[in-house]
C-alpha cells in the first residue's frame, strides 16, 4: 500500500463511522446531459423548499416571460418561484404534491406559448467582485435552493456564513446515492461553471483573506475529479479532494468530519464549526444566475431504473410532470415504484403526475426486482444496523422502544440525532423498515411540540382573558364604590342641610 492510500485508509478509519456500500447502478454516468423542451403545461408548486410557502405575484391569464418571478418567498426562510417558459398563467390550483401521500398543494399552472421569451435579471460585470450582501441578494432573487435534495434556501445559508465565523466552503460533489449521476455529469460537462460559482460563493463568505474551498467528490467519479481539477487548476485555496465511496459520504456532517476532522455538535449548524457546504448543482445555479441572469428554472435530473427505456441525465424544466418526463424517456414495463430522488432517501411518488421541483435530483422507475420489497422478519439483534449507522446510534434499540411507544426513551438515546439516511434499513437482514420508525418518531416529536405550543398559547390567552376580566371587574367595583361613596356623601350633605 502506498503512503498516500495508507493515509487515506487511516483517515477513513478515524473520521468515518458506519456506512454501507449499496450497488452503485450508475450506468447513466456515461450519458451526456440532454435537454427536455418545456411541455405544453408546467405545474409549479409554491413550496419547493424548506421554509414558508411563496406567495403568488401573478394572476390567472397574466402573460409571463421565462425567468419572471411568479411567486415571492415569504419570511426569512423561503424562496421565489420563477417561470421556466413564456406563456400565460392558466390557473392557480391544488395539485398532487411530489410526496408519498400525493396530497394536493397549491400550484401555479403555466400554459407554454413555445416562444421562450426571456426576462433575465440584471447581470454584474464582475460578479465575484460584488459585495457579499449583494451576491446573497442576487442568489435570493434567483430563487436558488440547495439542489442536493435538502432544498434549504441558498441565500439564507450564505447569510448564515457571513454571520458566523466560517472559514471554509465545501462544494459537495459526493453524490453517494445509488443511481444518481446528475452531479457527476454536471461536473464532467460544466466544471468551469461550477468552479466559477464556487468562487462567487466563497467571495460571499465575507471573511478576511481567502477562505479554503474544497470540492469533495467520491472516488468512483474519476472523470468528474479530473474535470474539476482542470477547471480549478492554478487557483489558490481550492482543492479537489477525492473521498471514499461509501454511503452516506455526502451527508453534510459526515463529509465535514471526514474532510476537516471537525464534528458538528448535536443541535448545532455546520456554520458553528466554521464550514458551509453547498452542492455542485447549487454552485452551478449560482453561477448561471450571476453570469447570465437566468434564475433557477431548470435542473439536471437523472432518469433511471429498470423500467426506463432511455435512461440518462436530462435538463428538465422545473414544473414538468414526472409522467411527462417518463413519457419522454419511455418505459419498457410498468414500474413497481416511481421514486423521486435516490433509492436510499428518495420518496415513492403517490401520484405520477406530481411535478419535478427544485430538489428533484432523480426520477427512478424501479422494477420489482430492483425494489426487493421483502416481508419484515423478526429482529435477531445482529447489530448490522449499529455497524451501519453513521451517527453512532443504536437503531435496534430505538426501534424496539418506538414499537412499544416509548418515544421519550427513544429520544433519550439519540432519536433526534438520526439523519434518516436509511443505512440501517438497508443493512437489516430482516428487512425491518427502521428509518421509517425513526421518521415516524421524529414526526411525533414535532407534532407533540406543536400541540404543546398550542396548549400553552391557549393557556396564555385564557390567563390574559382572566386578568383582563378581573381588571374590568375591579374597575367596575371601584366605580360602583365611588358612586356609592358619592351618593352617601350627597345623602350626608342633604341630611346635614
Amino acid at each position, binding site marked *: 500500500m502506498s503512503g498516500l492510500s495508507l493515509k487515506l485508509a487511516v483517515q477513513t478509519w478515524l473520521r468515518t463511522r458506519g456506512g454501507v456500500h449499496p450497488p452503485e447502478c450508475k450506468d447513466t454516468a456515461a450519458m451526456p446531459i440532454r435537454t427536455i423542451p418545456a411541455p405544453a403545461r408546467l405545474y409549479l408548486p409554491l413550496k419547493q423548499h424548506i421554509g414558508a410557502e411563496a406567495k403568488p405575484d401573478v394572476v390567472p391569464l397574466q402573460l409571463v416571460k421565462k425567468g419572471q418571478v411568479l411567486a415571492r418567498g415569504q419570511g426569512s426562510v423561503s424562496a421565489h418561484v420563477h417561470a421556466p417558459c413564456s406563456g400565460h398563467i392558466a390557473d392557480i390550483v391544488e395539485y398532487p404534491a411530489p410526496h408519498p401521500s400525493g396530497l394536493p398543494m397549491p400550484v401555479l399552472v403555466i400554459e407554454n406559448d413555445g416562444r421562450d421569451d426571456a426576462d433575465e435579471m440584471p447581470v454584474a460585470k464582475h460578479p465575484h467582485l460584488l459585495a457579499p450582501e449583494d451576491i446573497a441578494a442576487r442568489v435570493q432573487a434567483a430563487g436558488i435552493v440547495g439542489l442536493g435534495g435538502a432544498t434549504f434556501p441558498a441565500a439564507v445559508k450564505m447569510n448564515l456564513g457571513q454571520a458566523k465565523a466560517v472559514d471554509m466552503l465545501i462544494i459537495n460533489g459526493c453524490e453517494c446515492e445509488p443511481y444518481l449521476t446528475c452531479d457527476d455529469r454536471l461536473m464532467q460537462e460544466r466544471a468551469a461553471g461550477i468552479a466559477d460559482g464556487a468562487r462567487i460563493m466563497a467571495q460571499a463568505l465575507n471573511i478576511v483573506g481567502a477562505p479554503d474551498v474544497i470540492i469533495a467528490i467520491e472516488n468512483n467519479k474519476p472523470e468528474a475529479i479530473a474535470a474539476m481539477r482542470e477547471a480549478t487548476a492554478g487557483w489558490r485555496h481550492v482543492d479537489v479532494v477525492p473521498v471514499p465511496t461509501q454511503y452516506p459520504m455526502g451527508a453534510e456532517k459526515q463529509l465535514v468530519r471526514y474532510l476537516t476532522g471537525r*464534528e458538528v455538535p448535536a443541535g448545532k449548524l455546520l456554520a458553528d464549526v466554521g464550514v458551509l457546504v453547498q452542492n455542485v448543482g447549487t454552485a452551478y445555479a449560482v453561477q448561471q444566475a450571476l453570469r447570465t441572469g437566468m434564475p433557477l428554472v431548470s435542473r439536471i435530473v437523472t432518469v433511471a431504473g429498470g423500467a426506463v427505456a432511455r435512461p440518462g441525465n436530462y435538463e428538465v424544466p422545473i414544473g414538468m410532470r414526472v409522467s411527462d418526463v417518463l413519457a419522454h424517456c419511455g418505459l419498457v414495463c410498468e414500474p413497481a*415504484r416511481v421514486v423521486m430522488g435516490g433509492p436510499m*432517501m428518495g420518496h415513492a411518488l403517490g401520484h405520477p403526475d406530481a411535478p419535478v421541483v427544485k430538489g428533484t435530483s432523480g426520477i427512478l422507475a424501479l422494477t420489482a426486482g430492483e425494489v426487493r420489497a421483502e*416481508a419484515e422478519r*423478526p429482529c435477531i*439483534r445482529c447489530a448490522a444496523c449499529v455497524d451501519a449507522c453513521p451517527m453512532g446510534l443504536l437503531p435496534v*434499540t430505538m426501534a424496539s422502544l418506538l414499537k412499544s411507544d416509548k418515544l421519550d426513551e427513544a429520544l433519550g438515546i439519540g432519536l433526534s440525532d438520526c439523519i*434518516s439516511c436509511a443505512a440501517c434499513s438497508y443493512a437489516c437482514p430482516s428487512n425491518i423498515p427502521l*428509518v421509517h420508525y425513526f421518521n415516524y418518531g421524529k414526526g411525533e416529536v414535532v407534532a407533540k411540540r406543536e400541540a404543546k405550543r398550542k396548549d400553552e398559547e391557549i393557556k396564555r390567552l385564557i390567563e390574559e382573558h382572566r386578568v383582563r376580566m378581573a381588571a374590568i371587574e375591579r374597575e367596575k367595583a371601584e366605580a360602583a364604590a365611588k358612586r356609592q361613596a358619592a351618593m352617601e356623601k350627597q345623602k350626608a350633605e342633604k341630611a346635614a342641610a
Partner: protein
Amino acid sequence: MPATTAPHTSGPRSVGFIMAMVMLALVPGTLLGIAQFGWPALNLFVLTIATALAAEAASLIVAGKPVRVALMDGSAVLTAWLLALSLPPWAPWWIGVVGAMFAIAIGKHLFGGLGQNVFNPAMLARTVLLISFPVEMTAWIAPQPMFSAHAPGFSEGLAITFGQLHLDAVSSASLLGHVKTTLGIDGHAPLPAIIAGSFHPLASFMGTTAGSLGETSALLFIAGGLFLIYLRIISWHIPAAMLATVGLLAWATHLANPLHFSPPLFHLLNGGLMLGAFFIATDPVTSPVSNNGKLVFGAGCGVLVFIIRQWGGYPEGVAFAVLLMNAATPLIDHYIRPRIFGRTLGGEPLPVAGKEGP
C-alpha cells in the same frame, strides 16, 4: 402491501444467509467430530436436528405464526446443531430429543420466538440436561474414528444411540474433567505431572481428544470463527475478549502458582472454549449490540469460564458462563452505548470549538 418508504432497495443479507454461513463455518469441526466418534455421534446429531425442526413447527403452529418461512430460516437447525455439538457424542437418543425440544419450545418460543429469547437456547438445554441427567451428560469416550478397527459399525452405532449397548471399556474423561477429579484426590500427583501425563497441546489443537463434538478440534472451530469474522457475520470483539481474558487469567495464576493452576494453553485448547467463544457467545440475540458492550460481554464470559473451571463444581464452565452473561446483556446494553456523533460519551452535545460549552 409492503411499506413503500425509503430505502427503495435493500442489502443482500438475510437471516437465512446468516444462519447458513454460521452452519457452513461449523461444518469442518462437526465433520471431524463425527469422524472421531463414529455412527453414534452422527445418529445423535441427526436426531437432535430433526427433533428441533419438529418442535419448531409445533411451536409455530401453537403460536399461530407462519410455519414455512420460519422453518426455512435455519435458526432452529442452528440451535440444535450447537446443542448436538455440546453433548457427549455417544449419549442416548433421548438426551438429544429432550434437549432439542427444551431448547426450541422453552428456550426459544416461550420467550416469544426468534430474536426474543434472553438465554442462548442451546446452552440452556445443555445446562438443563447436565443438571437433570448428570450421568449421561458426563459419559465421555475416547475417540473411536469411524471405520477404524474398534469403532462401532452402523448397527452397533444404532444400538449405542438407542441404549441397547453399553461400552464402558472405551469411556474416558475429558481432560478438564481428568485434571479436576485427579486434583481432588488426596495425595494426588502435582498438577504439572498430571498435565504432563495427559495434555498434548497438538492433540487438543487438532482435536483427537475425548469430549463432545464441539470440544475436540480447537483449530477447526478457530478457522470457522475467523471465516465468520471475515464475512462480518460476527465481530471480533466477543471472541477476542473472551479468549484474551481466559488466557490472561490462566497465565497470571499459573505464573503465581504453577502447582495449582494449569497453564494458559491448557485452558485455551481444551473444552468448549473455542466453540463457545466463536459460535455460542456470539449469538446475536443474546449478546450486546454495541462493540464496547461486546467486549465487556466477552470478558465477562472469560472471567466466569475461568472461575467455574478453577473453583466451580463442574470441570467445564462455558455454558454456565454464557448463560450468566446472557442475563447481563440487557444491563450491558443499557449502560454501554456508542458515543453519538456530535455528543460526548455521556450524551451531552459537544462544546462548540473556541467557545465555552453551555
